[in-house]
């Protein structure tokens, strides 16, 4: 290598693992609730009485006290220059309102350098939490590429977990509290060998990325309009979602 090192471009990613919606009984059930949802939610805002809490416990029987881990998977030509490429969040309990969101707001801040867009970094999330016996089990894996274009991106990643091979095994794993897990969470960022597994969908995690690139255009990679403004993605900005 040259003494000065090869010319690289930089990719700065910051943002946060915002929240999760991890419910086995999906929102559909909530919407099918006999009471008028509007009334329901209004009641919930004003009087978080025990009755409703009970009801919520019924709707979302599991998935509380979750924490998540993230790590980045990137190609050979990539190297992190600053920040943490791995992290583990605090444990969060679900909110008491109707959304039952699990909010981490766990910051991500990492800078990569690379000579090649091949192997663009992917963030791999894995969510863990106790099951009904208190065993720490995995609640979801998910991965997404860091957005290519600079700017603010909100991503909602569907999560999934590997399924047991057989019913019996499912029962025993449930009973023993050792659910099937990937040997390495990074498996979800690659396609190789996935055909041997079967998975089940398991809620969503919302991620917010703020992406800044440097010298990409100089090196001949065009990742979108020169000045991307505004939020891309379907979701409305934070705080106004309701």
């Amino acid at each position, binding site marked *: *290598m040259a003494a000065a090192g*090869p010319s690289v471009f930089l990719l700065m990613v910051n943002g946060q693992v915002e929240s999760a919606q991890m419910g086995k009984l999906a929102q559909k059930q909530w919407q099918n609730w006999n009471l008028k949802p509007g009334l329901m939610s209004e009641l919930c805002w004003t009087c978080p009485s025990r009755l409703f809490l009970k009801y919520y416990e019924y709707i979302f029987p599991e998935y509380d006290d979750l924490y998540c881990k993230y790590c980045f998977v990137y190609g050979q*030509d990539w190297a992190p220059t600053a920040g943490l490429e791995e992290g583990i969040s605090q444990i969060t309990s679900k909110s008491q309102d109707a959304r039952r969101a699990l909010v981490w707001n766990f910051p991500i801040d990492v800078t990569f350098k690379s000579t090649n867009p091949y192997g663009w970094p992917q963030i791999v999330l894995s969510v863990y939490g106790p099951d009904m016996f208190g065993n720490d089990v995995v609640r979801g894996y998910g991965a997404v590429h860091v957005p290519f274009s600079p700017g603010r991106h909100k991503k909602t990643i569907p999560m999934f977990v590997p399924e047991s091979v057989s019913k019996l095994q499912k029962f025993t794993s449930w009973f023993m509290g050792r659910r099937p897990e990937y040997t390495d969470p990074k498996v979800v960022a690659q396609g190789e060998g996935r055909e041997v*597994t079967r998975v089940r969908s398991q809620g969503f995690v919302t991620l917010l990325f703020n992406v800044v690139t440097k010298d990409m255009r100089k090196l001949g990679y065009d990742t979108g309009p020169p000045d991307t403004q505004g939020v891309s993605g379907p979701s409305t900005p934070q705080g106004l*979602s309701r």
Partner: protein
Amino acid sequence: MKPKEEKVKIITEEFIEDSEDADEGRQKKTVKVARQKGKKQLSSAGPKEMVSEKSHPDDQQEPVQEGSDTHLLGMTSRRGPRSLPPIPSASRTGFAEFSMRERMREKLQAARSKAESALLQEIPTPRPRSLRHPSEKELETEFGTEPGREVQRTQQEDDSQGFSRVKFHDSVRKIKSKPPVPPGFPSAEEAYNFFTFNFDPEPEESEEKPKAKSRHGTNQEEEEGEEEEPPVQEGVNKMDEEELLDGGDTEHLLLGLDHAAEDFVAVRPAEYESVHIRLQMEKELLFVPSTLTVPTYKKLPENVQPRYPEDEGLYIGARLEVPRTNQNIMENRLLMQEPGRRWFGDDGRILALPNPIKPFPSRPPMLTQEQDIKAELETLYKKAVKYIHRSQHLIGSGDPPGNFQLDIDILGLIFTHHPCFSREHVLAAKLAQLYDQYLARRQRHKAQFLTDKLQALRNAVQMGLNPAKTPKSLETTQKTINEYKSEIRQTRKLRDAEQEKDRTLLKTIIKVWKEMKSLREFQRFTNTPLKLVLRKEKVDQKADEEAYEAEIQAEISELLEEHMEEYEQKIEEYRSAQQQWKAWKKAQRAKKKKNKQAVEERPDEMKEPDPGEEPVKPVPPEPTDRAVIEQQVRERAAQSRRRPGEPMLVPELSLAGNVTPNDQCPRVEVLRREDVKRRSLYLKVTFNNKEVSRTDSRPLGADFRVHFGQIFNLKIFNWPESLTLQVYETVGHSGTTLLAEVFLPIPETTVVSGRAPTEEVEFSSNQHVTLDHEGVGSGVPFSFEADGSNQLILMTSGKVSNSVAWAIGENGIPLIPPLSQQNIGFRSALKRADAISSIGTSGLTDMKKLAKWAAESKLDPNDPSNAPLMQLISVATSGESYIPDFFRLEQLQQEFNFVSDEELNRSKRFRLLGLRSQGVPEFRNYKQIPMYDREIMEKVFQDYEKRLRDRNVIETKDHIDTHRAIVAKYLQQVRESVINRFLIAKHHFLLSDLVVEEEVPNISILGLSLFKLAEQKRPLRPRRKGRKKVTAQNLSDGDIKLLVNIIRAYDIPVRKPTTSKFQQPSRSSRTFSEKHAASPTTPSATHSADYALGQVLVRPFVEVSFQRTICHTTTAEGPNPSWNEELELPFRAPNGDYSTTSLQSVKDDVFINILDEVLYDVLEDDRERGSGIHTRIERHWLGCVKIPFSTIYFQARIDGTFKINIPPVLLGYSKERSVIIERGFDAVRSLSEGSYITLFITLEPQLVPGESVREKELVARYVSLIPFLPDTVSFAGICDLWSTSDQFLDLLAGDEEEHAVLLCNYFLSLGKKAWLVMGNAIPEGPTAYVLTREQSHYLIWNPCSGHCYGQFDTFCPLKSVGCLIGPDNIWFNIQQYDSPLRMNFDVTKPKLWKSFFSRRLPYPGLSSVQPEELIYQRTDKVAAAELQDRIEKILKEKIMDWRPRHLTRWNRYCTSTLRHFLPLLERNHGEDVEDNHRAELLKQLGDYRFSGFPLHMPYSEVKPLIEAVYSTGVHNTDAPNVEFALAVYIHPYPKNVLSVWIYVASLIRNR
């Protein structure tokens, strides 16, 4: 205390404070104390107090700065900011405050002077003192009480409550201060405060309010001046004071009791303190905002009066209703977090927007976030991506195919013949056909057209003959006339033919009609409604006749003219021929004459002239006769033309006839009609041989017509290649039959729907149908005649009327595929049959040929129908379009190539990327391939290119012996290919590779776990627990350590006394057979004697070297030393790469050398002996144990006793046993020969051996060994390869398995009973050994070393046996133990050995993969000798290299002695030569003291030899006069197997 009392007290106190005379100094002191106490109290108070306390220091600092009189100033200044008068003149606060202070000061000074004077007059009494205390208290609490005034405004009372409490405690303390203060007072106070603060119930607000108000009132009065203070008030206050005192006393008593009780428990356990500290710590970390109301002055900038915009007439919306507590919390939090007051508005409240809540309820949109999620899961409709038919991909056509549509209109179907046709139908069809023909002809009117043309031509000739009218030259005129004439002739012939055809057609129609009529009469029913009417058109007879005659005349004249011309021509010809003939005749005659003369001379030679050469005499042509011509013309005219005057017959076919109803028909006819009714038809539309749609099934009509009238719109994406209609017929309910296929032409691009003409396409079927009714059938002969003559065979046939056109899009644009070369060429050419006939079908694609044809055939370039062809040709000839003359397999590849191949190869970056993705070892882990070529150094490729170059070059530098060089190369290639395959195999994943899941527990596991429940928690015999394994990824240099625990050794060779120059050695009585017979050797007498002398026989120590790091133990003494030491060696992975694959490929060995430390006294001057010791240490190598790192890596730990590899000859040492040993451990020792060392080796931390988990398919070691060559070449994660014995011998490389197989085969061929043993051995790990059966016992052979052990040999390296493999079966060990010591090798016992082939699965008689026999070549002895010399040279050079600081002398005499000795060693397999040898050496080199030994190794390459010599450390002698001797001997065995002996020795001359 009741609030009321408290209030009263406060008032009094305040009053007293101001009015009372007080001793200045004393007051000061007490104030100080009180303040300190107050501080303490505050700090220990509950968190509620904290805010107020913290906000004070700002105020408290002020007095200290201001003046010497802390008390007074403190009071005033504290009041300063708070004592804002509630007057509206807020803007001048500063001034007001100042004046206020001034006033206060004056007042106080006055009071002080008054007090002083009073002091002078009176003796101090307890009363004022007791009164003073409350005043102190008041001072203390006042700064707390003050906010209460402001609070009133904001309707918050909490603060004042707090302060009232403070006051209460203070008063208690004050009262208490009358009795002597106990020493433990402060802590008790704190405790008290703490508890009271926490548990005191808060006073009711309602009670508090008036009190605060009244207090406020008094305070205000007090502040505002004496003049406002009414005297009555004073009196009241005094009365209150007295009341208070009474109340205070009672309180005091009560509290005093309480206090006393508390004093007893004042000695608190430490727990309390810890809680306290914890609270303190929590206080540091956590901030719990107070719910107390924040006074307005804190929220506003200093000295700013709050202003209320609402009062000023500004509109403010309704504020959001927030509970007061929350508001307070927020305010406190804001004040805490940010000292700045930017969160507060002018009115001292938190800035807030007006209430955004709508006055009326509305339903919020439900859970937007969830909806988003839903939206993401929703299926999106996307238009299908067009797929373009491969074969239709046009090279170079870049335009994307659009949306095209073909409209196929199927009107109907008419059968021209059908099996159900009756005879009448046949005739009717014929008639209809003829009539159609007739109609078509009449429409074209060819005859008339030709007649007109003829007329025109005649006129033209007439005109041309008139020269006056033609401006052209005579010549051209003549020429044109001639042309015209010839054309007239042509046209006339054509016209005649046409006219004749017309006439015949007419005749035929009439004839068929007549037949039909007769048929109808004959069969007495009518089947068809056909009716022919012949209409006669009257003609003007006279005009007709004239025209007829004129025509004839004209024709005659023309013919005559023609004939005349012909005649003239012929005459001309005749004349020339005549002349020719005459000339010939003349010549003939002359010849004859000559001949005659010649004949006279030589009559026999005369010959007949050649008859062939004689031209025929021309016959003069006959002039044409006009009459004859006229005759001919008239005849022809009569035949082909309507006679003049004869009416013109116009046939008209109508369907006006009546069909006989069924009941009047005979049975056969009825059957036929019913059959027809049962039939129905449908059409399938196929496009490019794919069915795209089909019509409805329609019944066949009685007139054999089917009407469909359906239009099919075909959206097409592929190029239309074929469009077919398939006609299917269904008879009743029996199946359908394909009648015929109708091929429709693809329409021209100009044909769009709406304008397309209806076309009739004929079809016919070759089916054979015979019917049992009136129907004539198909493909079968039938006849109209009664006698069956004149047979006809008709096939089913018909016409489909349809129209095919391109659709028109919505915006009026026809949906036609763009004109492209191939398409046009194809279709235009199809149209022009002559093009095909002229250049052949193959020429259609050959543009050059096509262009040539077009040029030759003088195509009209302006004809619109030729336009596409002309365009094509112009394109083709101008060279704009390039049609390659090659065939490309993947024609799209080029489009996807983003750079050309040359550029790809030229670019260093691309090359690097490519090589990396191929997994080329040099680049597999290359990180950060630079962006630009210029940043890539050329040398990056150097290694790789060198390797590529060297691939085929056999290097003889390392491998001296060519055969071995070739083998090494071959091995290298095998390894590469195995690695490549392995890389591919690595991409096949199993579920267990990806997902970790517990196995379903089976019964035994469940049972075990249940059993475990009953297990003791702390067993008496602790068991070793497994260490935590570390995945070797996050490791770096120095993290991994190799721990070698040397425990002890047995039977180390002992020194021989060097003093005796010659000693007759006692010949060892050991023989090979005795080895296993466990016979102890007799000790030699000399040694016993030596031992008796008490000399140290040997001082061994162990040196462990690994990766050139050397550690050694301390020196022990005696031949059975015990060290019990742990050595720690660092481990460095190659290139710092700690991945599992890299670790697996570590080839380093751990050498454990046993050395003898010899001390020599080198003190030369005996006089110094008393004062100093000068010794030199020499180390003599005794033997070594070599353990490859890979074994340690895979085994995790190595524990056991190993045989030390001791050279057969150790100069200066002997392996004699001492008496004691023999006596003591005889039983154990005698089991085996040699020296042993007990070791424990492990890695710290323990590494997870990567791929070896998947043992069933991958054994991560590949060891290549040449026979008797334990050279480990292990490399990463590769399957184990077993080669056959011949391959093994050819390669001269293989691991234990190959060795074992070969050895086993040898044994078997020798007639021994032998088995292959699969098991675990130390240090090899999983390995293969050979088991042989002797008469009474079993022997276990290590195939790599060639050693053999008895079954009960303790030191047998084979530790466990898994299975035995015999020549015809495999046995698995199912015994309780797997150690050979405790096993039974009798394979016939099924309880001990489970055989693979049993009765259930008998041995199928497999043939062996091994060759029948092995072929051995003789090894070249000369080459061996040469190799021997070279190795010796290399080794000598190496030794000199290793001694860079010393002179290395070679003792040549010794070397030659050694060299002679080596073959002897080889002959005796290194045994039983020691004593002889030593004796000889001693004889020859008596002057020297030497140490040395021969090394025996199998030969693979030079490097291991060098390593072996290095590891002995012979070169490490730094004695000044040391000399060396080194001899090499190579003994060649067949098949190029070489045994290498190296004798190294160091010699020191005795003084």
